């Protein structure tokens, strides 16, 4: 820190501005392990009963939290995997191959990205009903993947664009096939983009609410977002503390991912490779 710049006023200001968020976070955590009398801010007693949803058999009409969590994981992982694999290959094609209608494709992909999901939801609903994928996790995965793909393709294309042509030419003259060149020489250069895109699409699917809610409302294919919503929807006496506990449980993987990978997540905005 340079001597002509004092940091404490800035820290104080930022701390003050962040206070509401910090308070919310603290109470989210505190309320999951305590009971508080209505109207009071000070918790009365420590309890773990708000976490009983993790161990108890579910009430009638509710799903088991673990099968819902598994669903969410399947949903997020498959979405992320398909987005990554498709973006990896199509980004390369759009960046490198001299295909017909390349510009049109690029523009089309971008237009798709510009559509808000909600505007498409009715037609998607009808399509899934027609194809028999309505109310199944597979249907939601496909729809979420399709909506995530435009960003993925563009991000990967951007990363591929930064890899010099000569590296590929050198690989070819060194005797490697086009595929080997891509796998052994180009892929390692776009590796940061790959990791970031994988994480981003995982997180996007993990936090997706509207698609599972509309397209797969049934218990069998419920995900955590819709489970959370069900928790307070039908009850005459909503248990907000349990709602918070489930919420914290739901947010935990996201926080862990951010803690571990925050460096890589930054990279997607850097948009380049370091040699």
């Amino acid at each position: 820190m340079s001597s002509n710049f004092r940091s404490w006023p800035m820290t104080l200001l930022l701390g003050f501005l962040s206070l509401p968020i910090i308070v919310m976070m603290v109470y989210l955590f505190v309320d999951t392990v305590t009971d508080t009398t209505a109207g009071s801010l000070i918790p009365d007693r420590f309890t773990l009963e708000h976490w009983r949803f993790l161990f108890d058999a579910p009430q009638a009409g509710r799903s088991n939290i673990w099968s819902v969590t598994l669903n969410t994981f399947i949903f997020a992982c498959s979405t992320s995997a398909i987005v990554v694999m498709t973006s990896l290959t199509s980004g390369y094609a759009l960046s490198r191959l001299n295909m017909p209608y390349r510009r049109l494709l690029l523009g089309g992909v971008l237009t798709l990205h510009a559509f808000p999901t909600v505007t498409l939801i009715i037609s998607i609903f009808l399509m899934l009903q027609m194809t028999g994928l309505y109310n199944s996790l597979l249907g939601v995965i496909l729809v979420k993947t399709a909506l995530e793909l435009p960003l993925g393709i563009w991000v990967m294309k951007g990363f591929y664009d930064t890899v010099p042509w000569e590296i590929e030419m050198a690989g070819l003259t060194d005797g490697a096939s086009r595929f080997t060149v891509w796998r052994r020489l180009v892929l390692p250069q776009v590796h940061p983009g790959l990791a970031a895109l994988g994480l981003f699409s995982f997180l996007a699917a993990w936090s997706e609410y509207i698609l599972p809610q509309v397209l797969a409302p049934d218990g069998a294919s419920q995900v955590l977002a819709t489970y959370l919503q069900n928790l307070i929807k039908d009850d005459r006496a909503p248990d907000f503390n349990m709602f918070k506990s489930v919420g914290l449980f739901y947010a935990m993987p996201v926080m862990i991912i951010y803690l571990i990978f925050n460096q890589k997540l930054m990279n997607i905005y850097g948009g380049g490779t370091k040699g």
Partner: protein
Amino acid sequence: MRILLDQFTKTFGATTVIDKMSLDIESGEMLALLGPSGCGKSTTLFAICGIHRMNGGRLLFGERDVTHLPSQMRNVGVVFQNYALYPHMNAFDNIAFPLMIRKMAKPEIERKVLAIAELVHIEGLLKRKPAQLSGGQQQRVALARALVREPDILLLDEPLANLDAKLRLEMRSEIRRIQQETGISAVLVTHDQVEAMSMADRIAIMDQGQIVQLAAPKDMYDEPVTDFVASFLGNPPIAFLQGTVEGKTIRLENSDIVLPLDAQAAKQGNGTPIRIGVRPEHFQPEHPVKISGKISFIEEQGREELFDVTLSNGMRLRSVQANGGAFRLGDEVSWGLAADKVLTFDPSGRRI
């Protein structure tokens, strides 16, 4: 190995970049493709290594017709202008890559990489990533990678363009040494005439997709076939004077300067327009055919001095002198041409 490019044609869309060009590279020689940007020299190089498809003609490596073979099956070694080292691999793996692709045995790879590293003097750097190497060292790694699988031909695309002046001098002789030690046929693409003259056995000078002249550097310098070749070779460059033939003399345009250049004038009829090319070393105080003018520019280069002399009609001659210290800017001088060294060209630029 002898490389033969026969009637090579290359088009991009509707434009023909190179039209029916033929080039014969002898075994073990270093041939420079020299020309201004956009003359088609890199296109030719990429056609030889198989990155560009040929639109017409044949390419022979020895007796083998490789015209339609993809790059991978041609056995060419290429050094790119920016070296194109694989940034995620260390120098050893970079050099070993072509051998690994051929599924060569590990000990064999190691032996070959070490041998070639020794040849290009990078034994101590093999564990480093390209980013940790200097420009000259990257260049050496790129050379080693191109040479390690003993290619039929080594292609160098502007290999010195990215180096600073001092390294350029060093790598110029290094590349030449390595090429001569391995005895490999090589093609050097460059726009720098000094590079071409100092490194190559023969130079093919290119302009607008055509080879204008193919000769050894010295022959090309002394006997250029066109004024384009004459102006491209030599630093400081050749100076041109416009004139017309008058009997056994040449009268310079818009002046009463008459040069008794009978040998050159005799070949042309009276009244024909003519261009005279004078290299700076052939315009000296002691030479016989005197011509007067005023010194309009002096450039001190340490070992020698460069003068521009403006004639009464505004034309300019250059002179380079090792001991010209006595002259000042603005001096009226009467220096001479070496009559037998003066080059003459017809109006279309062809040598007379």
